[in-house]
């Protein structure tokens, strides 16, 4: 079609009558613009086709996007059973993510465990998002696995530092240590937990290391634990030596060269 149109004015151009020139040139320009647009479209299509013809690892990476999980049976059943406790249920890269109200997490976990076959608690972890507006500062994330259908569900619970989350230890005994770790690292406590103590840091450590505002260089922990050795805020800080001083230091030796090397 386009070929015929572009050819027709050319045929006229070679004709003996010069009056048609203006109209012919206009038509020619139009046709050229049209051809150019078509060529661009064709080039784009060809590029897309070439991209699609490429093996997947040579294509541009496709960043996964959130989608509403309306067709998920598990999400539907949870909504039916728990109603308002389910804030939203979406999928991302094939994973079902369910936002659960803090108070109901143990009930939701119980339903998933007893009725939907999520017998395996893969992991519980915490997260700290101090910059998120209008949303709780902390999150507790539960990864569940159904061994028979190999389905995975991720439950997310928003909470604040001073609002304890109901424990899921009655549902999975294996939740004991990960919940202790969240308390240890983030300072989010669990209500009804049998042994809410620190696990990786030592008892008496005065901070929550995984919080975003915890300095990476470390904090003074000495005086809190060894008041007889350290003055207030004089404990070990990473990168500044141990800060340890002998309890009794003779004044004469302090001026002597090399006395500081002991530190």
């Amino acid at each position, binding site marked *: 079609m386009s070929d015929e149109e572009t050819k027709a004015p050319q045929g006229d151009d070679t004709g003996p009558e010069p009056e048609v020139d203006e109209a012919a040139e206009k038509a020619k320009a139009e046709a050229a613009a049209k051809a150019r647009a078509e060529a661009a479209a064709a080039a784009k299509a060809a590029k897309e086709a070439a991209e699609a013809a490429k*093996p*997947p*690892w*040579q*294509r*541009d*990476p*496709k*960043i*996964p996007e*959130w989608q509403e999980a309306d067709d998920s049976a598990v999400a539907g059943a949870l909504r039916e059973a728990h109603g308002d406790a389910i804030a939203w249920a979406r999928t*991302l*890269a094939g*994973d079902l*993510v369910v936002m659960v109200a803090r108070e109901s997490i143990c009930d939701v976990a119980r339903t998933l465990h007893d009725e939907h076959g999520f*017998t*395996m*608690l*893969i*992991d519980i*972890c915490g*997260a*700290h*998002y101090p910059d998120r507006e209008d949303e709780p500062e902390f999150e507790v*994330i539960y*990864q569940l696995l159904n*061994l028979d259908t*190999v389905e*995975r569900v*991720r439950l997310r619970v928003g909470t604040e530092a001073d609002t304890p989350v109901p424990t899921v230890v009655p549902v*999975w*005994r*294996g939740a*004991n*240590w*990960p919940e202790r770790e969240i308390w240890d*690292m983030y300072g989010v406590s669990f209500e009804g937990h049998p042994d809410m103590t*620190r*696990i*990786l*840091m*030592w008892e008496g450590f005065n901070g929550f*290391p*995984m919080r975003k505002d*915890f300095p*990476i260089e470390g904090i003074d922990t000495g005086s809190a634990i060894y008041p007889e050795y350290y003055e207030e805020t004089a404990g070990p800080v990473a990168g500044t030596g141990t800060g340890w001083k002998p309890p009794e230091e003779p004044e004469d030796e302090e001026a002597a060269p090399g006395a500081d090397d002991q530190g």
Partner: protein
Amino acid sequence: MADSENMKHNDTLFDVEEMELAFGPQHPSTHGVLRLNLKVDGERIVDCYPIIGYLHRGTEKLFELHPFFQNVPHTDRMDYVAAATNNLAYVGAVEKLTGITVPPRAAYIRTLLCELQRISSHLLWLATHAIDIGAMTPFFYCFREREEVLDLFEEFCGARLTLNCMRPGGLPFDLPVGWTDRCSAFVDKFPSKVDEYEGLLTNNRIWKKRTVGIGVMTKEQGLQYGITGPMLRASGVDFDLRKAEPYEAYGEVDFDVPVFHNGDTYDRYLVRMEEMRQSARILRQCLDNLPDGEVMAKKPRVLKGAKETEAYYGIESPKGEIGFYIVGNGTPNPERCRVRPPSFYNLQIVPELAQGALLADLVAIVGTTDIVLGEVDR
């Protein structure tokens, strides 16, 4: 008068009071620095309370401070006897988060590396477990073959233990010339070596006395505690992520998942022995079908995790399911990077298994859980 005093003396001699005993952190059979606070009634363990954290280095915090591609070496240092599987779990999670597809040659080489790593990890486990129980000889046999696996790793990436051998998108480099032949030679002879280990132990009367019926874990206990990997498979649960959610080249190779049903130390030993044979089978098929082509996918120069996106990716490591949960924030660093450490969960059941066991059997129970404290504490 004298009689009653004698009686009193006897009472204190055979005291029935419980004694507290700190097992570790420097005990050789704790495989690192694990402390078990025990309450013992004579030789029987009444109560066991593990104390961990001696190797805590804040790895998860370190992840948040480095760009995605700089975090791979951190993963080596968690389970330091199985670095390749740690690498794969991490780069797999990053690839899931950023939508990268890996070329088939890279997927096959990754499978090769992971299975070699499984063999080397199981060999180290068998060697130390046997030495814990009192069998010295298997140690020398196992380390003989483990050395060859480490040589293969060294030839590929220059490191023997902390491999750092994978990148988001594929591999940093292709296999060196002649590597497949040397790997092939190892794979050919390895099953006969497993026969040698089994000849030393499987029907050995002392070995069976020390392991059969010791530390029995039921299927229900395993599920309650989130136990994964060979430990769960020794309790009769037929679940292996390589079969259930085939990743890399596992969907294209043929192998069996060994399952045993007694859940004791002996069955866990049998599962791992059979897994080594199956690993050799997978290696053979991967070497035979190794595709040609590139080993790195197309990816942006700077990898960024999009804001408010997250991904969890779990694979079957020699110890169980290792997974990474990564949250992106629009920068080249992750906002949150959580490791799901299999040893952490597997160690948690030790107090339950140790209840009522003999003190000497605790060594067998801790050994059979195959923990690496670098991963427990991170």
